[in-house]
């Protein structure tokens, strides 16, 4: 029968019936239900299994603190593990599945762990599983891993989208219960920019769960109308389903908004939005969480928090049981009993741990057993509670036991920075203390104000106090706070029922009092931890796993402290709490990642010739965020090597064109530009004439090489620097550091122009002919425009351009730059004009081959661990001036002649294929670290030489040209004899590039 436990009342929409399933069983509920309320309405008491002992568990709470009722929601790649049934809104077609079981939920095979529980006490695994040695990973650990863990990931990519955003407010209010609503109302009326976040789908907090009145109206109704008026204020943003999960530095809060989880998957929508909220001030009105009392077998399905029981009856119209007993140490237990009685639910007993008369009117509780100074000493019922046992041995029937051990203010966010909560004896709980996050104040139950009237006033006043410090806010408009009666709330600290017999006997071994339900931490575990010397609160947590479950101990932590205090003879405030850390409630990793995932993890930068390259068979490679053409396959070519060999050969014999736009370009202007360059480059630039280019090596201040490139003196007081693709950003940052921090007196200005110019390398013996066909008036003869010349010119009948005669390939070569918008068109023009010259486009792979043939360095050599001298450029480091890094490059360790130096390597067997990453070992020496002489940094097949060549670093390499060593690659099981040679494999004297 469906909805057997439904009673009258509540705030569900009975006109909107919803069907859903739990473990395959088809059930129905109503709009406005949570999964938990719908399960209870259908009499589904058993909903999960505990973490360690696989004990049967039911719903405990009605909110985010839920330790037990964790389920998987959805199917396929959208399956969501560890969802709290108490938070998940019911929607049509919702599919819920229980987790952490082998077999069915009712007949979980892993429940055998519970039988072995006497052996599985806290910390048992540290003491065993050590023999035989190999068994830990092969036998013990897999078994432990499998029985632990809760829900299952789908193992498929999450198909949903997530957005991330930024919000700003004068005042952020966290929690829209009575204090939060009163705060928002006051603040909203003043005109301040207010954000009110509520993690529930409905504002009101406990107002929806209790039978209160506010301003003489029904409290839930007041909450709804107040929220509506807040929504109508343009300066107030009411955000429901939004959990503020962390308080970060300087008024930044992390919040997660669940956009579609209450309706299921919606295409084209963000499932959730992660907001970063920057608020000048914040009122934390996050309410309080009820805590249980420890007694034997207090974890059976049907044993719930008393406040949650009221929530189910009053808000959801659900009776959590047919015969309900109450166990309390405060007045809330009585409130529960009265509310249930008012809904015609049978109350079988109210057991008050205090020795006080029942508070208020008990006329509705006739027929119930009312016990003063009583206790529940045990319970019975395997998959559902059947009865409870009192200290005198009496058994009282109950299928639901409502327990109230008092309330813990939700201090968490107040502690995310340096706050340490302080103990308040009168409510037997911690309240926010120490240093709160900047701008935060706390109001209502979160601050220990546990009664309604006080909470409302407290919220109102907190908002005004927060806004007082802000300029241009008028507090007069705030009006008076809402009013309500303060209900009685007297609590007497009572944590656990004394055990009847010593638990330290096997007979009592299975009699346990649970503290942390999910992680199966019992009173005994905490005592054992203390016994073994782990009595600091952090030690207890780590030794027993108390509070480390998905609920982070929301219901268990303070109770655990009380047990620890008892066991170690200290007071609770002496012990203190563990540290509260973000997040308040778990946040999906996908939400934290937002849109930055998959192909959109980072932006993709496209070169000016990208479209053309795509049309011409290019294969692309990621270089930083750029996509560069790696090679251009032609029909008939079956391997990339064929393609690259052709591109190299064609370039070296005719002409090739390569897009080199990605190299960093920095416009350097100002009367002190030359001086500036002298100070940032190791070599000298102030002597460079206009119209000339110079190769420069830039050091870090520690003397190691940072970057290299060319800088052109394009006009008076105007230079154009190029950097490597990878270092464009760090070099610019470094130059700005030099300019602003070291030498602010210099007249020098930096503008990154990397993207402003499309730049092509035109290389090969026929490059001059091609360039001549493109430029307008410039004489590009060797005499008029020699190697390392540069000019501003025009091309293709009047287009502004820059021409540099520089070469990375070792051939006669130019680099031609035009405004980026003409890059595509220029590439097409170069190809058409060059057709008769045998022009070929080449990619980064051919570029790499040619630079290795010429012994030029790239990132493989400039690793940040090499000096200018290591790469054979030691003489470029001027000793005639102070520039960045010149001094520290003279430290003994950097000048050591024994350092590995860059040289070339040829395989002795010319057919052998060298490998980058091989290490050099002398002949006959063992392949061990002590004999390591260096490594091979770059390798290519040289089509010019017809064999494999390599660049590498070897100790005293420059002195050892002609020597033979072994290139050892034990990683891949290879070894080749190699000959040390000059790094300049092709045209060592540079005749071609000067031709």
């Amino acid at each position: 029968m469906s909805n057997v436990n439904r009673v009258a009342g509540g705030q569900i929409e009975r006109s909107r019936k919803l069907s859903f399933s739990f473990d395959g069983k088809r059930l129905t509920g109503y709009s406005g239900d949570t999964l938990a309320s719908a399960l209870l309405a259908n009499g589904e008491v058993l909903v999960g299994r505990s973490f360690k002992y696989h004990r049967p568990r039911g719903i405990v709470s009605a909110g985010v603190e839920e330790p037990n009722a964790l389920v998987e929601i959805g199917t396929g790649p959208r399956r969501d593990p560890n969802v709290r049934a108490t938070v998940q809104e019911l929607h049509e077609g919702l599919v819920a599945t229980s987790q952490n079981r082998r077999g069915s939920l009712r007949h979980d095979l892993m429940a055998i762990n519970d039988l072995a529980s006497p052996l599985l006490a806290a910390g048992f695994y540290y003491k065993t599983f050590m023999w035989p040695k190999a068994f830990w990973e092969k036998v013990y650990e897999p078994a432990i891993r499998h029985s632990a863990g809760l829900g299952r990931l789908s193992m498929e990519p999450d198909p949903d989208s997530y957005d991330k955003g930024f919000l700003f407010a004068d005042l952020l209010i966290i929690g829209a219960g009575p204090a939060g609503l009163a705060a928002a109302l006051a603040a909203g009326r003043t005109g301040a920019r207010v954000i009110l976040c509520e993690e529930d789908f409905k504002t009101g907090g406990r107002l929806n769960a209790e039978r209160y009145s506010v301003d003489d109206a029904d409290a839930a109704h007041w909450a709804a109308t107040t929220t509506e008026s807040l929504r109508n204020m343009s300066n107030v943003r009411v955000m429901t389903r939004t959990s503020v999960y962390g308080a970060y530095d300087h008024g930044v809060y992390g919040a997660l908004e669940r956009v579609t989880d209450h309706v299921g998957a919606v295409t084209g929508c963000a499932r959730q939005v992660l907001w970063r909220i920057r608020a000048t001030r914040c009122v934390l009105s996050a309410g309080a969480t009820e805590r249980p009392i420890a007694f034997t077998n207090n974890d059976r399905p049907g044993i719930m928090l008393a406040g949650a029981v009221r929530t189910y009856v009053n808000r959801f119209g659900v009776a959590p049981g047919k015969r309900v007993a109450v166990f309390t140490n405060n007045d809330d237990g009585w409130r529960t009993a009265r509310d249930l009685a008012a809904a015609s639910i049978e109350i079988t007993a109210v057991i008050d741990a205090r020795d006080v008369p029942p508070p208020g009117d008990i006329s509705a509780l006739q027929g119930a057993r009312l016990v003063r100074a009583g206790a529940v000493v045990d319970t019975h019922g395997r998959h559902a509670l059947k009865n409870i046992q009192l200290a005198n041995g009496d058994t009282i029937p109950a299928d639901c036991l409502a327990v109230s051990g008092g309330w813990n203010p939700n201090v968490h966010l107040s502690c995310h920075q340096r706050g340490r909560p302080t103990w308040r004896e009168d409510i037997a709980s911690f309240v926010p203390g120490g240093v709160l996050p900047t701008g935060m104040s706390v109001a209502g139950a979160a601050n220990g104000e546990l009664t309604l009237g006080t909470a409302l006033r407290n919220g109102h006043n907190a908002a005004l106090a927060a806004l007082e410090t802000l300029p241009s806010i008028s507090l007069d408009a705030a009006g008076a706070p809402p009013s309500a009666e303060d209900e009685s709330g007297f609590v007497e600290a009572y944590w656990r029922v004394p055990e009847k017999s010593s638990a330290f006997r096997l007979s009592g071994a299975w009699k346990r009092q649970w503290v942390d339900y999910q992680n199966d931490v019992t009173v005994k575990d905490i005592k054992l931890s203390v016994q073994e010397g782990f009595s600091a609160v952090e030690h207890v947590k780590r030794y027993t796993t108390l509070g480390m479950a998905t609920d982070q101990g929301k219901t268990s932590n303070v109770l655990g402290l009380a047990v620890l205090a008892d066991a170690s003879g200290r007071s609770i405030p002496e012990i203190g709490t563990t540290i509260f850390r973000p997040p308040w409630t778990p946040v999906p990793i996908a939400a934290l990642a937002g849109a930055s995932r998959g192909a959109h993890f980072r932006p993709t930068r496209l070169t000016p010739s990208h479209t053309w390259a795509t049309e011409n068979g290019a294969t692309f490679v990621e270089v930083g965020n750029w996509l560069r053409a790696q090679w251009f396959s032609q029909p008939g070519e079956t391997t990339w090597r064929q393609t690259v060999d052709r591109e190299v050969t064609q370039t070296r014999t005719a002409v090739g064109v390569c897009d080199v736009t990605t190299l960093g370009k920095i416009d350097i202007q100002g009367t002190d530009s030359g001086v500036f360059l002298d100070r940032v480059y190791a070599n000298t630039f102030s002597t460079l004439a206009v119209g000339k280019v110079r190769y420069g090596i830039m050091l870090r201040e520690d003397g190691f090489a940072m970057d290299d490139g060319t800088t052109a003196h394009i006009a008076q007081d105007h230079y154009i620097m190029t950097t490597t693709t990878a270092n464009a950003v760090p070099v610019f940052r470094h130059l700005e550091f030099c300019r602003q921090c070291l030498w602010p007196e210099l007249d020098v200005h930096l503008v990154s122009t990397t993207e402003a110019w499309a730049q092509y390398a035109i290389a090969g013996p026929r490059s001059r002919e091609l360039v001549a066909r493109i430029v307008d008036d410039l004489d590009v003869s060797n005499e008029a425009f020699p190697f390392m010349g540069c000019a501003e010119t025009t091309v293709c009948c009047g287009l502004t351009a820059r021409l540099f005669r520089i070469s990375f390939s070792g051939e006669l070569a130019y680099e031609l730059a035009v405004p980026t918008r003409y890059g595509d068109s220029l590439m097409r023009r170069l190809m058409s004009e060059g057709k008769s010259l045998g022009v070929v486009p080449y990619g980064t792979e051919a570029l790499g081959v040619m630079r290795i043939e010429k012994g030029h360095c790239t990132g493989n050599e400039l690793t940040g661990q090499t000096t200018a001298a290591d790469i054979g450029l030691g003489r470029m480091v001027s000793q005639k001036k102070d520039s960045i890094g010149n001094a520290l490059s003279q430290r003994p360790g950097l000048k050591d002649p024994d350092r590995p130096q860059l040289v070339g390597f040829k395989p002795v067997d010319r057919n052998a294929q060298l490998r980058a990453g091989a290490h050099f070992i002398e002949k006959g020496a063992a392949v061990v670290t002590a004999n390591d002489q260096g490594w091979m940094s770059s390798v290519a097949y040289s089509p010019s030489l017809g064999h494999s060549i390599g660049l590498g670093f070897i100790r005293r390499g420059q002195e050892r040209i002609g020597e033979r060593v072994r290139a050892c690659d034990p990683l891949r099981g290879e070894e080749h004899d190699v000959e040390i040679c000059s790094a300049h494999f092709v045209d060592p004297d540079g005749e071609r590039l000067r031709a």
Partner: protein
Amino acid sequence: MRYSAWQVIKQGLNGHSGWQAAFRDPEPKTDYDVIIVGGGGHGLATAWYLASVHGITKTAVLEKGWLGSGNIGRNTTIIRSNYLLPDNEPFYELSLQLWEGLEQDINYNAMVSQRGILNLAHSDAQVDAYARRGNAMHLAGAGGQLLDTAGVRKRVPFLNFDDARFPIKGGLWQERAGTVRHDAVAWGYARAADSRGVDVIQNCEVTGIRREGGRVVGVDTSRGQINAPKIAICVAGNSSRVMSMVDQRLPIESHVLQAFVSEGLKPTIPGVVTYGAGHFYISQSDKGGLVYGGDIDGYNSYAQRGNLPTVEDVAEGGLSLMPMIGRAKMLRSWGGIMDMSMDGSPFIDKTDIPGLYFNGGWCYGGFKATPGSGYCYAHLIATDTPHTVATGYRLNRFRTGHPVDERGAGAQPNLH
């Protein structure tokens, strides 16, 4: 009391009433042979190896808070020896070998779990760099395999092979790497050292270092003066604070590193995986939580907490690498103080002050080094000469020009 399966059964049947404290809670004595300042993993390991290898047992380990409250209590538990430089690789290999025998050595199951580590490469240059590194590992006897894309896919099929921004080109796999239950390392070393007579003293903060005639003679603490001719500093993120007591500036900055754990999940990720195109590494604990992290926040901090940009950056890396973890939820984040050195490598050295030793600069890689660091530090304290695998970890190496710069990032701690 020796721990064993038999003992567990016996005590279990006896209601666990027979278990004794794992280590004593002694009052500090006035004199010791060695004082170790810092009761974290490295300090406790040092005490154990001083006792077990060098027979020095008149040792006090002084911890200002609770035992293991520093970075040993908050890290991502990874152990490995996949380093590049000859000053590093043999040291980390020694450390890994000590991990492999740890449980039998100290009679404590710290759950050393050699489930392997895979460092992914996303460019040809990265593959080359891993080849160089993998060979350096082989030279030091650490093993390792270079996997191509297919090899990676076979081992970790749930990575993003389909629409990755930076495709996986291969990876460096070290089978002997893995994870360890971090708190248990501190407890196990403390228990073992205690069993040899070492005083492990909690809640004892060092407030000053006493010198006479240039030599150190003892320390002032919150629990009184304690004397010893040898004082060994081992305080990780607080290195600069403690060394400022003797007016020493260090090549160290303290930075915050955040780490994260998800809710418990059924077994999902077999070993450790690191992303080579973003800052992200992940493993799964025996309890089922995905333990993951990334880069340091990047600014000096002693606050033991971080900020959102890094939290998000790490998640972005994770989702890009393994999109199937999207619906796993971050349960908890925490921040530790990292003693970031100028080259990303540590120090195990004597100071200029006779009798004063320094161990620090472990950056965010100190956990895996715990046994090796303790072993080599103990060697240095006992013999006054550096252990052969730790000769590169000198304090004056920046002045002489011998940095041990694994990343090649130069003298900027937040880049290491």
